[in-house]
């Protein structure tokens, strides 16, 4: 019997040795991570920021692959292809990949799927996003101080809660220091259409705006502002290089810190489904690239507000503030819950413009 037991132990040990990677946890360097991008990595904005995160993982020794410009309609094939090649983590980085991610995840229960900006989870599917609205709020403060015409333009991409949230946070930032300023919105109905974004910036400046902020992916609006001697605020990545004399600041996403966290969790075998929405305290989002025209005084005020947000003494969506039509949205001493912030579908007071109706 003793011999048999020894054999049994040996067999178990061998089995563990082969499958042991998941039992004992493996080194982060043995991980394979795949990224699905909706745009080109050279967009200088959204996809570019995710690719910086991927490069961060690569530096840590993780093997990574990516496919760029994957249409949302074709994503299921691309995601499945990665899953078949035994990738440990698959990051799908566009809202539109929501259903294809879940479908493939159900076919490959061993792999971990992380879907950015979505809301549907499963046993092996988590969602994640950064509270870039906090950084948008801070850029709003800069704009509120810097505007002379008290008209600030925003280029809207698509009228979805994510973008409405960002425009609201920006406007609350502007009005927290300059209650007379107005924020005008133009929708381009595209994430990425550089020449149209530039034309939208021109339209806003013709209408009196002296600062243009964007929710789209390219730097065309910043360039248009620079051409006319006006100011602009970048989105997703630091856009200083594109228009150094116009660039006030950019609200950015640093995915690297989050991707590192997830990779370590998966490697250690401790990863669990969650809906992560990290804030400015984690470094996932920040305000960066202050232009020379932004005085030390303004920077200090912005940093002070940032510290208050980190210390949870101040919340971007804290009352009192009104809806666009002047009716109260949140009362003094109250604040919006995460769910309310996530699904916000109205503009706050100070925004000029409407949500397009089809």
């Amino acid at each position: 019997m003793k011999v048999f037991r020894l054999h049994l132990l040996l067999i178990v040990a061998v089995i563990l040795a082969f499958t042991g990677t998941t039992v004992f946890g493996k080194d982060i360097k043995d991980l394979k991570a795949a990224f699905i991008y909706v745009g080109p990595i050279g967009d200088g904005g959204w996809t570019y920021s995710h690719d910086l995160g991927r490069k961060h993982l690569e530096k840590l020794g993780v093997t990574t692959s990516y496919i760029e410009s994957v249409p949302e309609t074709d994503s299921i094939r691309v995601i499945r292809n990665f899953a078949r090649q035994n990738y440990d983590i698959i990051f799908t980085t566009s809202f539109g990949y929501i259903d294809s991610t879940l479908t493939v995840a159900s076919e490959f229960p061993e792999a971990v799927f992380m879907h950015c900006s979505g809301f549907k989870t499963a046993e092996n599917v988590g969602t994640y996003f950064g509270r870039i609205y906090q950084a948008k709020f801070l850029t709003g403060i800069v704009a509120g101080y810097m505007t002379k015409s008290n008209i600030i333009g925003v280029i809207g991409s698509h009228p979805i809660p994510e973008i409405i949230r960002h425009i609201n946070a920006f406007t609350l930032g502007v009005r927290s220091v300059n209650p007379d300023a107005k924020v005008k919105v133009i929708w381009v109905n595209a994430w990425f259409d550089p020449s149209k974004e530039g034309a939208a910036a021109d339209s806003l400046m013709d209408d009196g705006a002296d600062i243009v902020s964007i929710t789209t992916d390219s730097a065309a609006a910043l360039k248009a502002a620079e051409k006319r001697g006006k100011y602009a605020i970048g989105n997703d990545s630091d856009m200083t290089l594109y228009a150094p004399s116009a660039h006030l600041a950019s609200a950015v996403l640093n995915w690297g810190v989050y991707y590192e966290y997830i990779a370590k969790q998966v490697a250690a075998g401790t990863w669990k489904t969650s809906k992560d929405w990290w804030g400015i305290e984690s470094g996932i989002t920040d305000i960066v690239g202050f232009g020379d025209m932004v005085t030390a005084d303004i920077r200090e005020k912005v940093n002070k507000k940032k510290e208050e947000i980190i210390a949870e003494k101040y919340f971007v969506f804290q009352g009192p503030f009104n809806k666009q039509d002047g009716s109260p949205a949140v009362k003094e001493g109250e604040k919006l819950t995460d769910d309310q912030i996530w699904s916000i579908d109205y503009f706050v007071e100070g925004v000029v413009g409407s949500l397009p109706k089809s």
Partner: protein
Amino acid sequence: METTAIEWIVIVLVSAVKMGTPILFGTLGGVISERAGVINLGMEGLMLIGALTSFVVKLYTGSTILAVSAAAFVAGAATFLHALVCISMRASQIASGLALTMFGTGVSGLLGDSLTGKTVAPLMDIKLPILSSIPLIGKIFFMQDALVYFSYISVAVIWYLLFYTRIGLNIRSMGEAPEVCDSIGLSVMKYRYAAVIIGGMMVGIGGAYFPMVLTSFWVDNLTAGRGWIAVALVIFAFWHPGKAMFGAYLFGAAISLQLRLQLIDIKISPYFLAMFPFILTIIALIIATIRNNKKKIAVMPASLGEAFFRGEKH
């Protein structure tokens, strides 16, 4: 700050001309090519190739003339492949054109990868003497940049060439009845090659307009589908350079209005305006087909899309 209605319309039209110009170059290129009987669905790819080439040349030389010339040259060289495949090898023009677009999109993205964050000085507007003082018209058409003026000249030259010269008659005949041209001793090969490559060069210049004027930087997929608009506008323009101009500015105005109407009280759905030029294109296609069928005026080149087989047809 208050602008009158007329001033507002002028501002919209100034921007319509700017937004329409790259599409105009593309449409002109398509008109030349299709008049000779060869469809070019590679325009989106060619525009991207032209845009990247011009940006790189401008970045390193600072010269707009060199940049635009290089865009035309490189786009022309890429179009040569299309000509080779569908004129000499008589492969499907549709498939070859689509391949050219995929090639152009891919190769420009690959080669332009390292240009993130780099910019060039934008082309400034030039006020033309005398012409710019014409009320309204002057402000809309004659206070633009040099490439816009070049597009006016291109329209005039192509118009004259196609309809008032022997060469133009020959080019158009290649699109109508290449076998007849062949029988009277004209080289279908030479004319079609020339028309397709010159057309491709025009498309390349259209692509150059993006980094030279509209954005000042290169970014992957910079043209965002304008090449496809040009493909549609060739039909809308009934294969005519003058109507191409009208169509391109109409499309430019649709973009400009989509944006600027949002700032005033007139509420027209931006989705409707985005769709509007395409509806017109479909209507134009229907009209062209009906007219062709009635044999009154043939607007669509009769041999469009057909490869020429010497002595094998008819």
